[in-house]
């Protein structure tokens, strides 16, 4: 009786000794991430998701910030490469990193892009911008039918500089028109993607079109800037709908809690995008096949309590509810994309 048990224990011990190095060999030791703008809440939460996943997997994880400077981005990535990181993750500032993508390939360093595509990339983790706007547009259409008398005159507080944000706005209008066919884009302004520019631009735009009843922001700051301009003009929020995009930080949660018109958020779950980027880095490290675009999920959050499904807030810090977010099924392909492939 003891002999078979002893043999079994010996086999298990041998297997365990064999398994541990094999498992360790399949996990990169070090991942370097060059973000394009670490001071933005979206990227802070992307980094939060990356750090959490890297810690879970026992991977050393380092971050550098390009601060919207492509030269700084390339320099930081080259530093990581020369220091021998196993995998590199980059959020491209712009197409200026294409030569870097080529060099990483030549040196055999796996490279994952986050957020935006560039030519010759191996893979990118990003939400579908058009689809995100579209989902929110459909919800906005339903709201307009039920609460705004079927009227939809939209002010888009946009950012025409970036193709991703242009896609979101197009998606929003297309989604909206599936429910309200005569929905009109009354004002399309450049809010600069930040709250004070959005506020200033929206102030004049609202004076130009007094009959606007939907404010769409390509990110949370833009939506909040538009809403603050509305409030500053002394108007009531009674017949207004505000739709934000991103779910970047605490701002949208505060707005949904307290602003009567802020009813819909096109949430893009930055923590999840960071989490998925690390998983993709591990796959590339193990030379597994990955699609060109790994879609990170997005969802339209509707109503004052809608955010509670995906987040909890305590001590002015939000925490993602991984179970709920992981249950979201992203589409295999985007309806429309700006990717150069």
């Amino acid at each position, binding site marked *: 009786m003891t002999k078979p048990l002893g043999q079994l224990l010996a086999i298990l011990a041998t297997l365990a000794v064999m398994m541990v190095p094999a498992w360790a060999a399949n996990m990169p030791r070090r991942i370097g991430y060059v973000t394009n703008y670490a*001071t933005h*809440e979206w990227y*802070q939460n992307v980094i939060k998701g990356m750090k959490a996943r890297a810690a879970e997997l026992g991977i050393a994880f380092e971050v550098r910030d390009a601060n919207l400077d492509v030269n700084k981005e390339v320099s930081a990535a080259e530093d990581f490469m020369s220091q021998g990181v196993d995998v590199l993750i980059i959020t491209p500032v712009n197409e200026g990193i294409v030569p870097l993508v080529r060099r990483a390939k030549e040196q055999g360093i796996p490279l994952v892009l986050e957020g935006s595509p560039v030519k010759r990339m191996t893979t990118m983790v990003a939400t579908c911008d058009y689809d995100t706007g579209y989902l929110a547009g459909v919800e906005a259409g339903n709201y307009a039918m039920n609460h705004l008398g079927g009227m939809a005159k939209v002010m888009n507080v946009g950012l025409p500089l970036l193709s991703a944000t242009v896609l979101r706005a197009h998606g929003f209008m297309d989604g909206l028109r599936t429910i309200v066919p005569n929905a009109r884009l009354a004002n399309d*302004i*450049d809010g600069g993607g*930040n*709250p*004070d520019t959005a*506020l*200033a*631009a929206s*102030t*004049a*735009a*609202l*004076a*130009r079109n*007094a009959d606007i009843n939907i404010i769409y922001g390509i990110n949370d*700051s833009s939506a*909040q*800037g538009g809403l*603050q*301009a509305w*409030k*500053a*003009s*002394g108007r009531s929020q009674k017949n207004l709908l505000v739709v934000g995009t991103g779910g970047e*930080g*605490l*701002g949208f949660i*505060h707005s949904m809690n*307290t602003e009567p018109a802020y009813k819909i958020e096109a949430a893009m779950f930055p923590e999840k995008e960071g989490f998925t980027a690390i998983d993709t880095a591990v796959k590339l490290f193990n030379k597994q096949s990955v699609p060109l675009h790994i879609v990170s999920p997005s969802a339209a959050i509707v109503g004052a309590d809608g955010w509670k499904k995906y987040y909890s807030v305590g001590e*002015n810090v939000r925490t993602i509810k991984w179970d709920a977010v992981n249950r979201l099924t992203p589409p295999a392909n985007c309806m429309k994309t700006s990717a150069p492939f």
Partner: protein
Amino acid sequence: MREILQSANSTPTPHRLGANSPVVLIVLLALLCIAISIGSSRFYAIENITAILRQCALVLIIGSGMTLLLIAAEVDLSVGASMAFAGMIAMDVTNQTGSVWLGAAAGILFGGLVGLVNAIIVTRLKVKSLIATIAAMMILQGGVFLYSRQAIQNNNQLPAFTAISTGFFGPVPVPVLIAAIIFICTYIVLRHTLFGRYVYAVGSNPQAARLSGLNPERLKQILFIVTGLLAGLSGLILASLMNAGQPTAGRGFELTVIAAVILGGTSLNGGRGTLLGTLLGVLILQVINDGIIILGWDQELQLVVPGIVIVLAAYLDIVRRRAGAR
């Protein structure tokens, strides 16, 4: 002393400039208003005029201090960064204490503190104000993220905090009222007090001012602190408008302010300028900004058109000075 004040009142005076510059600016402003209103009748809607005045308020508040500084031949490029930081502090202290008054005081005093540090670096360490305040801007832009990487929300949702920017005093928006009070006070100080004459004197010829018994350093310290306090006040109003302290707010605001002041006829070399000119400069730039959106033009023109206007204004100023020299 009398000679130096007379000198300050003769060649580079506000009076002589006032005889020409405001007229040109008033005509320019009127032409702009007529042209835009031909393109869109919405321009003269009450809510649009209110919006323009509200936008002018923030620029005018800091612009009043900046005019005094520029006349004294100094400049403060840290006002935009100081605004953002002051707004963050005002929001944070309001959240911590539940008191809008304490939050407001903290934000404004922070701006004053930045002004004091700038003043010490410029007047004691003799670092040029251009360099010193660029350095201050960089320190503040980085420091605000050390303070908090995220926007500070109005956690207690105190309506009194948002009322600072969105409230009305009768038909007048609160920020416009605040800007008007500050403008009138600085106007009186500059035009009708000895202190105002000293500002011109120090900017025209600091050596002569010193020889006549003035203390240019002390006067500049006061002006830096006043400009800092006004930047803090603007930061408070901006945070109130956004209902949050935003670390990235106010980027480039210093250039808007300086552009308005220069457009108003204040010389970068010091010794010359008027607050009336600054008011007109602020109005012209904001009317252009508003008009571009009202007319549905490409918003990139919001940078291009004021740039052209400032070059033209500077050229007209040179022409006027040459004419005056003859």
